[in-house]
């Protein structure tokens, strides 16, 4: 059992959880993730280790509620427990002093790129951060990114905050201003990562993306997470999750990630309905007491 020692709601569907996991805290490096199972009937899902505190023996997770499992997790409170947390998994990001690098986070991807930006900065790079979100209230970790980046550009799709547009628009500007970008690290929704890959491809700027295929064990045992990179079969959980963006077969991965679309929808709808019933029951319950 893994205790939730602290929780902060960052945005309506986005929560930051601090989890007690001393062994993982000690070992984790930028780019690593954990597999978490919240409850007995729950799924195992992968989540990036955003931060860790070796002394306190804790790790930080930032979770965006998009389906049933993530909704349950974002609603859990301080003092509750995750049944299972295993890691650290995946290959850590190779961190070198390259010169000028760009770290791009889209949506919850900002949480995933933040530890990489931090490590790149520590290694001596000049780090330019680009943080993208649909609208103002979904922008996360702006302060944290500011602390570890030399410069941060915020973009929103609707222009409610920062620059109006996509992260790729900001990236194009940066590419115009900076003649010598040594590396681009992009994490976010798959279409965003693909767009970043296409943006940097003509100039052959080394670009890394952290792929998010469906995973189960996270240890190389099931092959659910397999992706094609440079025409070769790779298991994202052990060989990745980061790969050379210019070599990833995104079409295949996007199609594979839709495998359980119907079931995922059904799961979430049933869950939300159940929650509504509970709220309704609670209200009638209250009503009864008033009587």
């Amino acid at each position, binding site marked *: 059992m893994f205790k939730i020692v602290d929780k902060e709601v960052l945005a309506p569907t986005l929560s930051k959880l601090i989890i007690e996991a001393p062994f993982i805290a000690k070992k984790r490096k930028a780019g690593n993730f954990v597999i978490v199972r919240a409850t007995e009937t729950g799924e*195992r899902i992968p989540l990036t280790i955003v931060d860790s505190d070796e002394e306190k023996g804790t790790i930080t997770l930032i979770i965006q509620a998009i389906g049933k499992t993530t909704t349950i997790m974002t609603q859990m409170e301080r003092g509750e427990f995750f049944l*299972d947390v295993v890691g650290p998994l995946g290959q850590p990001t190779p961190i070198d002093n390259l010169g000028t690098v760009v770290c791009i986070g889209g949506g919850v991807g900002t949480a995933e790129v933040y530890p990489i930006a931090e490590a790149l900065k520590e290694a001596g790079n000049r780090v330019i951060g680009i943080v993208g979100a649909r609208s103002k209230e979904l922008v996360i970790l702006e302060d944290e990114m500011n602390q570890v980046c030399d410069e941060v550009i915020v973009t929103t799709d609707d222009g409610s905050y920062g620059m109006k547009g996509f992260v790729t628009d900001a990236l194009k500007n940066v590419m115009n201003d900076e003649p010598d970008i040594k590396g681009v690290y992009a994490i976010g929704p798959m279409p965003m990562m693909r767009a970043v890959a296409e943006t940097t491809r003509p100039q052959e700027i080394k670009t890394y993306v952290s792929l998010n295929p469906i995973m189960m064990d996270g240890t190389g045992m099931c092959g659910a997470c397999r992706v094609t990179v440079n025409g070769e079969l790779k298991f994202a959980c052990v060989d990745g999750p980061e790969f050379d963006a210019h070599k990833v077969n995104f079409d295949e991965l996007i199609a594979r990630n839709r495998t359980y679309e119907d079931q995922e929808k059904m799961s979430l709808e*049933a869950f939300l309905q159940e929650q509504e019933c509970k709220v309704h029951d609670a209200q009638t319950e209250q009503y009864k007491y008033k009587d």
Partner: protein
Amino acid sequence: MRKQNNTNTKTNGKVNPLKPSERMKIPRHLPIEQGAEIRISNFEEVSQGFNFELALEEAKRCLECKNPVCVDGCPVNIDIPGFIQLLLEKDYQAAIEKVRESNYLPAICGRVCPQENLCEIVCLLGKKREPVAIGKLERFVADYEMAHGKFTPPQKAEPKNQKVAVIGSGPGGLTVAAELAQRGYDVTIYEALHEPGGVLIFGIPEFRLPKHIVKEEVERVKALGVEIKTNVIVGRTITIDELFDELGYESVYLGTGAGSPNFLNIPGENLSGVYSASELLTRVNLMKAYKFPEYDTPLKIGKRVAVIGGGDVAMDAVRTSKRIGPEHTILLYRRSREEMPARVEEVHHAEEEGIEFQMLTNPVAIHGDENGWVKSIECQKMKLGEPDEKGRRRPIPIEGSNFTIDVDTVVVAIGQSPNPVIQQTTPGLETTKWGTIIVDEKGATSREGIYAGGDIARGGATVIQAVADGKRAAVSIHEYLTQVREENKKKAEQVAES
């Protein structure tokens, strides 16, 4: 403890009044089974084994051989005639305790051992008639204890105050742990997944090996004082060297199995709707996807399923798929029926369940629709050529014989390889080119104090082989730690003298 050494419970004629010639006339008894029609729509155990009456009747067939060759056929040398005699005496508790002296996982092995190639193939009765149903009797006494008996953990030796770490909680790891705990060591099992049992939990399906049985036998290992830590991936969460240097373990057993699925490397293998057998079986067994949406893990099996392979894993995958309810389930295998490595009993069960076998068929490509979903599988016809080194006839493609089968789900079940994480993170540990860990005849690896066995050393093998390796390693680890203890004592004495 009762009747510890009663190999000679020879109550000849008293308990079993039948003369050998009479015993030989009794035909082998068949276990009670769920009918094929019913069982394909549930996940309950297919074979319900023997009831009291059948068990006693079957036990009467044993000839109580003076030289019981069956015992040599069993990799852990269970005293087979010994426990069968106790069974006949209706001292079921003593019978199971007799079995447990040699095998700490009897309810499991009685169910999944390939008995027809081990104890039963050499049974003397089998020379003229059908062999005694040894596995089913072993299962009977084990089940008896779970239902009616009282389990008391075997006596433990004096505490040795030495710590042993066992990596992996498959049958091998559980056995080493049980054996060493009985010898007085402090044993901790580290398991990567959230539940102990290895392949017994995530691979072999519920309808062949119910998970409550595995859990019960795991509890018995714990009853010896063994601690099981789940959610620890050795090599990632903690390394072997840290176990020695920081946590004070003096010996380590590696029982991490062969868990990484192989693929065919043909076009279209990454389409949606293509699974490895490991993924399919883990979703169903460990994550209980067959109970979706009560359990959150989904599984999508379409209307027409093709499973590729011919071993136990392929058979489990095809029968599991069938139970999810597709209209048509086909097994594709590139050799012929005779070369199939799967257990005969399971092939027979699969056939009864209406699975179509398409032999001498080799997949060459998987084709998808516009959404990236499997649409069909393209295969090539094969013929059999000369036997290979193992004596199995080699399949040879027939030119121009390609044809396609319409399917929407494909399951690849062509074998597993060792997971390399420990090998990569443990300096000095020698491996073969296939990634299996090299061990000597004592189960010792190239590094002092580290032992290994089961699938990580053999590649894909069997449950009882893993158990036998576990027993062998326990003996070696005990010898090794005894030596360490004596050396430490000597050193301490020298220090005291000087």
